[in-house]
């Protein structure tokens, strides 16, 4: 389990993350939602091990993150930052293979093939990364981080993604999140920052709402997706529309919809 207990992080005495606690279990998708400036990215970097907490503890499978060397950390978790640029003419496959940088995999070729199949990256593997479209680049990066933790291990692994869908069109967004869903049965726990509330409602198992560096709410989608709570966290009127047949929630801003919809029921 990836576990953060009362983590606190300050920049020049100003708290960015305040007493935040959360956990990511293997086999679940945990989504972090919150307005801009809520401290999502800082929390993400703390969990990834890039920053050290001022106070509090982060444990990966019971081991404190402070005691793990970069190489050991890389075997339990892989991280996909928001934007990764490549300044040199690497091919897509070469970028994916960077996932093997710090460890010797026992079946590197098999892993590579499986990862490229899952992310649908094999047919442009020999193209230069720089020439790929935004969606293709994102899938290549996803393949790279997957390769890093692809091999089955006796312990659970974790995947941390910072807004993996931010620059993608709707079909690419669902493609990426569908890939994440397929990882759940591989003993991998997924933590993902999302901006789109609808995507989070659709794909996440649990959701943490962040506001002003604090965890405002954490729990299953149904527990967290309440109109008053979301409106409060995002400082914006938010309306939930429940789809009757599929038990799905649709999120909308209710500024322009101040009338009751016939096909919906209030939460």
């Amino acid at each position, binding site marked *: 389990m990836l576990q953060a207990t009362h983590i606190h992080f300050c920049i020049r005495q100003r708290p960015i993350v305040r007493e935040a606690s959360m956990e990511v279990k293997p086999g679940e998708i945990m989504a972090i939602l919150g307005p801009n400036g809520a401290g999502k990215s800082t929390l993400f970097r703390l969990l990834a091990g*890039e920053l050290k907490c001022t106070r509090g503890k982060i444990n990966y499978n019971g081991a404190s993150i402070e005691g793990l060397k*970069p190489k050991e950390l890389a075997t339990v978790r*892989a991280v996909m*930052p928001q934007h990764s640029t490549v300044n*040199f*003419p690497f091919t897509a496959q070469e*970028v994916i293979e960077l996932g093997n*940088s*710090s460890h010797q995999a026992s079946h590197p070729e098999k892993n590579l093939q499986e990862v490229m199949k899952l992310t649908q990256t094999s047919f442009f*593997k020999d193209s230069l990364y720089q020439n790929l479209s935004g969606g293709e680049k994102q899938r290549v990066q996803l393949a790279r981080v997957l390769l890093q933790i692809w091999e089955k291990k006796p312990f659970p692994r974790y995947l941390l993604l910072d807004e993996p869908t931010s620059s993608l069109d709707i079909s690419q967004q669902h493609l990426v999140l569908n890939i994440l869903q397929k990882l759940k049965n591989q003993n991998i726990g997924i933590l993902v920052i999302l901006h789109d509330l609808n995507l989070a409602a659709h794909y996440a198992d649990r959701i943490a709402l962040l506001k002003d560096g604090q965890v405002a709410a954490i729990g299953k989608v149904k527990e967290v997706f309440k109109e008053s709570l979301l409106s409060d966290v995002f400082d914006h009127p938010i309306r939930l529309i429940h789809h009757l047949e599929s038990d799905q929630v649709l999120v909308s801003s209710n500024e322009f919809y101040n009338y009751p919809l016939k096909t919906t029921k209030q939460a």
Partner: protein
Amino acid sequence: MILSSTIAKSKYNGIVLTGMSMGLLIIGILSLSAGAYSISFSQTIQILLDQVGLASQEINTSASNVLLQIRLPRILIATLIGGGLGISGAALQGMFRNPLVEPGLIGVSSGSALFAVIFIVFFSQLLNNFPLINQLGLPLFAFIGGLINVLAVYRLSRGQGKTDTATLILAGVAINALAGSLIGLSLFFADDSALRSFTFWSLGDLGSSSWTKFPTALLLIGLPAILLLTEARNLNALSLGEREAFHMGISIQRVKLRLLILSALIVGIGVSIAGMIGFVGLVVPHLIRIGFGANHRIVLPASFLLGAILLNLADLIARTAVAPAELPIGVLTALIGTPFFIWLIFKLNLSKN
């Protein structure tokens, strides 16, 4: 299918590297026979065969002396320095994630030259009675100067985990200007012989290469170059960014320190032997990336070989173009390198639009 493509690729890399090694060997033999004192090609081969005990006929002693005592060490040292500049340029470009980085542009060479001049002007006389310290002091000083400058530029140009190209170039300009003015200041206290060697530092010259300098070059350029080769994997990870490299399990601070020290060592020793030779470290890795891709497994060794080939070629021209006089080699590399680089920028711009 992927398996076979990977093998095909490493096979291809092997062919590329073998081909370049052959090219280097041919240019080396060509350089041995060419020069102010003419030695025919067949004579050259014979003298070389004689050295390994396969002599078939009488050989000319003065030709043999010129070849073995003057030209051979010079070619070997040119190979080490040219290769060193190529591989350290490739490593620094990879580390800074910036294709414009070059030991000369970011101040490594000028830092080395400054400290070398300081050593010659202020310490060389004092240590005249200790020839060994005197011989080791110069490369040591050059290395320290290069290291100080590269660390300074690195610190200045970094913010938010990235190196910004504009700041990097500005930091390089500033550091170069400072080193240049300090060299000028040191020369104020210098005698005539130190003044002459300043011309040498600033223009680059392989003329003073000899067997006595070869062990230093072999040990302090050759060994760091081999150590740089083992950093290919780390450099590949770093080309995605320092954050990403850390995520992938690289201890980036240690790796960066190793890369900086090894590059400063190579460039510093090179400067202490042959002065500032520009553009090799800039142009060579570019050519390799255009030709064979950005994977450092090929970029590093191929940059060494191409750097060695280019410097030997430049030295061959420097020795023969105005024979019996010689052109300073730094002038030649800049003369060939600059227009080429401008053409390169145009071409890259065109392909972008």
